């Protein structure tokens, strides 16, 4: 009924901002809700092209499941590779082999690409330097694969598997 007022994207932005507000206030009182709705409406009007975590989310069951799996995989990768980097840093000989490799991504949605780049950056040992079309340039502390295919398989495939389901 309100769909003429906002586009779907703006409704998603509005709800996400309201959710953020409620977590921030940590309360569900009436005045909090009223203020949150007013402020979120104002912000949705002023920057309507805003993006949120949920904007390009596909609301299917597989996507939700993949979301949780993605976070599980992400945090386990985070801890594992942090420990590996810590070993590199501590060891006296500093066994590094840095280089910038090129990998390919098939993701097309904005959010999915941002999340992929962020995930690659957050897992230490790899750092996204440039995102250009379908190519990602990744700085890798210990280069193990130089050609595009195997580097893609080694670095991005794990995340991309889930992100393709979530965002496409």
């Amino acid at each position, binding site marked *: 009924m309100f769909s003429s007022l906002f586009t779907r994207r703006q409704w998603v*932005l509005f709800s996400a901002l309201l959710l953020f507000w409620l977590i*921030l206030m940590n309360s569900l009182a009436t005045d909090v809700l009223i203020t949150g709705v007013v*402020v979120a409406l104002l*912000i949705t009007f002023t920057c309507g092209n805003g*993006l949120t975590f949920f904007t390009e989310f596909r609301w299917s069951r597989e996507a939700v499941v993949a979301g949780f799996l993605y976070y599980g995989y992400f945090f386990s990768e985070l801890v594992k590779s942090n420990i590996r980097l810590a070993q590199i840093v501590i060891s006296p000989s500093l066994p590094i082999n840095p280089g910038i490799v090129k990998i390919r991504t098939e993701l097309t949605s904005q*959010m999915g*690409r941002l999340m992929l780049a962020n995930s690659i950056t957050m897992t230490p040992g790899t750092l996204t330097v440039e995102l250009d079309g379908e190519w990602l340039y990744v700085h890798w502390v210990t280069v193990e694969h130089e050609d595009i295919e195997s580097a893609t398989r080694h670095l991005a495939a794990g995340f991309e598997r889930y992100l393709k389901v979530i965002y496409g």
Partner: protein
Amino acid sequence: MIKRFLVLLLVLSMGVMFSQLLVGYSPDRQLNATAHYYATQTASETGAANIVSAIIVTYRGLDTLGEVTVLFLAAAIVGMVLSAKQGGQSPTSASEAERQLPPYPPVGELLATGTQLLVPLILMFGAYVIVNGHLTPGGGFQGGAILASGMLLLLLSDPLRTIGHRLISVVESFSGLAFVLLGILGLLLAGGFLDNKILPLGTFGSLFSAGAIPVIYIFIGLKVGAEFSSMLLNLAKTEER
């Protein structure tokens, strides 16, 4: 060099003075009379949990008005100085060199997407800080600075974007006017200029409480945010002179 020696002498003498101050300083054990008044009476008089906010908005409200005026003047002068026509001067070598500046390097997809993601959140957080000024640390000045930071992020992600300059000046003048009007309303309906008791005090600690403090702070926040944003935009516009 004689100048450096004189400066060193001045700094040394000031250092001696400061060290005297430091040696003679002894921290208070008790709050002094004014602070004691604020500590005990603020909650019942204004209903604000954040005493600093209560002082800024009501007890020392006139100072805040002066401060907002100073800020407004600074923003206006920045705009004026930057937009002044430089007629009469021969074009210097510097401005010629600037004409050959290469175009901006591309912003890149990461920063553009990140901006789209973060700007609404920053604005929302600024609103949170402003609205909760009477309960938690924060208030109009901090929130205004956070709003301006959101604007800064927009500016960084797209240097040539023309963000609603008109809207910003409208918001600025409107909120300044509303701030003064609320002050006069306090003079008419309650005890004095910028008195917050023109609205009911509400229950202590809830969002709608402390009378007019949140309302006044919203206008201060909008005004400060608009002033900083117009400063940033004026500076950013100097590229295509």
